[in-house]
Every structure is written in C-alpha cells, then in structure tokens.
C-alpha cells in the first residue's frame, strides 16, 4: 500500500541555485501560481465583460462574495473596515483557490506546507503590529494590559497577555496547515483502503472517499473563511485597542 504521506513530498522540477539560495521550482510553486492565475482571471473575466448594472451570473457571484467580505470586515474592524476589504478579499480568494487546487488529482496542496501558512500568518501579524503602532503610537503597548485590571495584577498578566498575542500567528498557521494536511492524509488512507480491499467490499471505502472529497471542498471554503475572518478580528483588535 502506498504511503499516505507520499504526496506531501516536494521534488524540484527546475533546479535554480542563486548564490547558495535554493530557488528551485517545484510542483507546489507551480500550483500556487496556477491558483493565483485562476483567481486573477476569474475577476478579469468579469471586468473585461463590461460589468453592467444588471449583473450576469459570474458577476452576481463575485458581488455576493465581495459583499460577504465587506460584511465581515465591517463587523470586525469597524468604520475603517472598507480600507481592508481589497486585502481580505484577495487573501480569501488566494487561500481558497490554493486549497481547491490541492483537490485536483495529481496536483499539490500548497497550504499543507507549514512554511506557506506560517508566512501568511507571520506577515499578517507583523502587519497588525505596524497598523497598531501607526494608529496609536507608543500608546499601543497598552494592548498588553486588559482594561479594568488592578495595578497589582499587571506584572502577572503581561506575560500571559504577551503569550496570548504571540500565539495568534501560530494558531492561524497551524489551523490551516492542520486541516488541509489531515484532510489529505485521510483521503489518502481511505483511498488506499479502496485500492487494497477485495472486490465488492471496496465499494464501501470508495464511496466514502467520494463523500470525503465533497467534505474537503467544504473545508477548503471554511478554512479560507476562518483565515480571513481572523485576520479581520486581529486588525480590528489593534485598531480598537480593547
């Protein structure tokens, strides 16, 4: 039986080495580019087809999608939410397409690499810090002290609050990585069962693979949604500062 972790391995397709840096192209990078291109052309298709007041099918879907993003941005960030809608919308669409691209047989789930999700999460965390410092200046440090805390408790609460803040990029990265990896391992294991089970009996795991595949499509969307929702929550936290 094939190793269910086998399809997570990456091998360079076009080896590129620049001054000690390994910039080789591999399947993951190509899939990521494909997902990026798909997201870009989806929107360009609507823009090129001259969007009208009465929207077509694709335009309605994209307008609904942007409306949803605007809602979560407004709910969690507040008045300044509109400023972040383009960023959140691109983030959602990119992660969603990366997740979906991984479900195409023979391709690669780039979001199952902790490096990728970690890069997303850490850059979002650094971005929230920069937004906070730009908005509140030195006053931003009070994010480490919850409101209404007695002065005696402050030295004890600061390390806890610091950890709580620092764990945010970790949860963001781990959740996406974990859910995508687990889903694909599960698909691999159950499909392996379907391949090795004797005739007639193998209908059962095979049918389950189909169901699980549908579930994975749903998880792709939900994970992209949570990632962008939490990005909004974190941006909102540094803007409102309690």
């Amino acid at each position: 039986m094939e190793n269910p972790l086998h399809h997570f391995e990456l091998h360079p397709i076009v080896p590129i080495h620049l001054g000690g840096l390994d910039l080789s192209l591999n399947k993951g990078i190509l899939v990521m580019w494909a997902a990026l291109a798909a997201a870009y052309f989806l929107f360009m298709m609507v823009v090129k087809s001259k969007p009208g007041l009465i929207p077509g099918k694709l335009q309605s879907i994209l307008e609904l999608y942007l409306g949803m993003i605007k809602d979560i941005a407004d709910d969690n960030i507040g008045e300044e939410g509109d400023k972040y809608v383009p960023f959140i919308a691109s983030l959602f669409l990119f992660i969603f397409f990366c997740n979906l691209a991984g479900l195409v047989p023979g391709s690669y789930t780039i979001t199952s690499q902790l490096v990728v999700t970690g890069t997303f999460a850490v850059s979002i965390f650094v971005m929230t810090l920069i937004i906070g410092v730009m908005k509140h200046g030195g006053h931003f440090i009070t994010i480490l002290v919850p409101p209404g805390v007695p002065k005696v408790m402050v030295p004890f609460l600061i390390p806890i609050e610091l950890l709580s803040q620092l764990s945010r990029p970790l949860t963001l990265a781990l959740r996406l990585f974990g859910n995508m990896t687990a889903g694909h391992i599960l698909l691999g294991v159950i499909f392996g069962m379907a391949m090795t089970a004797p005739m007639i009996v193998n209908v059962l795991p095979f049918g389950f693979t189909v169901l699980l595949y549908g579930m994975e499509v749903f998880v792709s969307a939900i994970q992209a949604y949570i990632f962008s929702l939490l990005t909004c929550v974190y941006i909102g936290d540094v803007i409102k500062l309690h």
Partner: protein
Amino acid sequence: MSKDDDFKGGIGIAFRMGTELVAAILLGSLIGFTLDHYLGTGPWFLIIGLICGVLAGFLNLYRVAQELSKTNDTDKE
C-alpha cells in the same frame, strides 16, 4: 443575523477553539524550553512557560467563548 451567518459563525468558532488552546500551550512551553536550553537553568523556565502558556490558552478560549455569547445575544434581539 440570518441563519446562514449563524452557521458560518458557529463553524468558525468551532474550528478556532481547539487550535487556540493548543497553540498558546505549545508556544509557552517552546519559549520556556529554548530559554532553559540556552541558559542551562534546568526545568524551571519550561515550567513557568508551560503555566503561562496554559493560562494564555484558556484566556484565548475565554475570548472566543465571549464572542459566541455575543452572537447569541444579537440573535435573540
């Protein structure tokens, strides 16, 4: 709040709960372990880090739960 929003919010919170707790504990113990490793101070920083991590994890959980009760309140209105 529509039923659809409620569903999305519920799923979002459900997926958040687990990782919020785990990540804070992981991070706390990792920081403690690294400090111990470089300072050679036995298990002490690991223990402090672990305790802080657990507390921070529960703080995170508490905040997520607060959001849950907030959405429920707006639902009733």
